[in-house]
């Protein structure tokens, strides 16, 4: 029982990290970023290159990886997304094609085999009589800290208020002297950094492969939609529901059907609550 709780919490935490960034950039800039999974894959591959190939210290490579992903995200927003913002479908397509291109670059550079990222914590820890590998616990802690920090940043700082203002009405915010475009770039950077960090800390216990971005993208998308697009608490709630239900099914029924069960749950949520659990009604 405790095992399920712990593993469920770890899965939920990783899902939440992915989903919060995805929902943030949608909530603030109305960008449905289909390259979000690619940020996650890029983070994992950066961590692999720095630790396994360049033999840099773990903490340095982790920070470097997150930094690179954030810069990549901001560059994508500035160069590719901003000129197309008039059309939401064009933004959708350009981020999708960016993700596919990045996937191919990773495939050509690193090959299709899965890579092993060395774990940051290499020993099992004993939690209430259950042995859990240290990396998973570390992932849980880091995820909670990062999401908490993001929440405080948005709620408590001046820049955070600016982000909230832009998310409510970009035009009015602009009149108040808030540079909306720069806020979009900043938020895309934050969102990318969070996804990249998820890739870095989950890399050691997941298989790092060029196609990992697709699964990550679909899961993040599902979590965010179930939680309600644009709602951060909704995403966290949905991440916990989906994370725990996947773990439960994998433990007590049959791991083969985990994917199906969570997909059916997603479909049912949508049918019952068309705007997600905590979403506002959007006319997107």
């Amino acid at each position, binding site marked *: 029982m405790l095992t399920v709780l712990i593993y469920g919490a770890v899965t939920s935490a990783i899902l939440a990290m992915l989903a919060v960034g995805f929902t943030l950039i949608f909530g603030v800039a109305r960008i*449905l970023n289909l390259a979000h999974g690619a940020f996650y894959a890029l983070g994992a591959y950066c961590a692999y290159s720095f630790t396994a190939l360049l033999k840099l210290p773990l903490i340095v490579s982790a920070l470097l990886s997150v930094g690179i992903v954030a810069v990549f995200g901001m560059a994508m927003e500035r160069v*590719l997304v901003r*000129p*197309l913002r*008039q*059309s939401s*479908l*064009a933004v*959708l*397509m*350009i981020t*999708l*094609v*960016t993700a*596919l*291109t990045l996937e*191919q*670059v990773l*495939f*050509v550079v690193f090959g299709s085999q899965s890579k092993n990222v060395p774990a940051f914590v290499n020993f099992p820890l004993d939690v209430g009589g259950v042995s859990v590998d240290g990396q998973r616990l570390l992932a849980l802690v880091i995820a909670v800290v990062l999401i908490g920090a993001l929440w405080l940043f948005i709620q408590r700082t001046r820049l955070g208020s600016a982000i909230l203002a832009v998310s409510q009405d970009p035009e009015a915010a602009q009149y108040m002297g808030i540079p909306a475009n720069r806020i979009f770039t900043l938020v895309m950077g934050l969102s990318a950094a969070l996804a990249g960090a998820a890739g870095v800390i989950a890399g050691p216990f997941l298989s790092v492969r060029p196609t990992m971005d*697709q699964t990550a993208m*679909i899961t993040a*998308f*599902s979590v965010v*939609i179930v939680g309600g*697009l644009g709602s951060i608490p909704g995403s966290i709630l949905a991440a916990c529901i989906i994370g725990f239900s996947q773990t439960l099914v994998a433990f007590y029924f049959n791991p*083969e*059907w985990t*994917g*199906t069960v969570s*997909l*059916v749950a*997603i*479909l049912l949520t*949508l*049918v019952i609550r*068309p*705007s*997600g659990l905590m979403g506002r009604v*959007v*006319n*997107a």
Partner: protein
Amino acid sequence: MSATGKRNAAGAAVLLGLLAALPPLIHNQYFTGVFIVCAIDGIWAASWDFFSGLTGRENFGHALFIGGGAYAAAFLNGSFGLNPWFSIPAGIVVAVVLGLLVGFPTLRLRGPYFALAMLASAAIMQQVAINLWQYTGGTEGIYGLDTLVESSLGYYYLVLGILVATVVVLSLIAKSRWGTLMRAIKGDETACQAAGINVTFYKIASLAVSAAFAGLGGVLFAQYQQAVTPSDFDVFLSISVIIMAYVGGIGSIWGAACGGILLNLMLELLRGLGEYRLWVYYLILMVVLYFMREGFVAPLWRRLRGGQA
């Protein structure tokens, strides 16, 4: 006939002539195969565009209908050994049923919510096709289907004929009152309801029509490959179809079909690049999407032809 109408007819005639004449001229089994896949992709893209392009609801699970049609063909012809021609009506019926099943509960969903619901539905079917391996052959799929037409050139003409019929039928519906209503629903659904239009009926019927042609394409694909695999339900397939329609020009139907043909030919021309092929392909797509926000084929034709739409 107006000047633009004449130019449209001339353009269509040249295009069709090229499509009909190229495979026998190249006279190469392999290239005929490429053209068959091109035409099937054209059917898929046109059917996607009919629903999503006209109603503005992006369907991220078109592979649900494609795979449904393909597996219907595989069960009837592959597993039970029925005459392969039965696959065509069976595939259409299965796809329409899937369309109705998914259409009713997801009707009121908008934008990204509808996209995810469709994506999830296709993914569920894919999982089911993998997990119920006793019946579906699991990841290996079902093989040993018969060909509909012996010679591949003959099959190509069959598929091309069906592609033309698809584009003509869907365009006629798009031009009729039905199509106008679909565009009105895209513009403002609430206003349509207020005006007494049965929005529910038109949305479901349009999804069913779109599903029917996608399923038909799925059958043609399965009978051509003589096999089906769970990848017929893949998200990647759905996404490829969307890209084809987008490159062709959303809402144009014939343009979407051309987008499917064009992208497939381009992918084939890049074959010499080896492992860099898809990379270059996506890079080209990125440039096209960036500079031609309305798509490529249909807007380009409008500019070349001049005059009013």
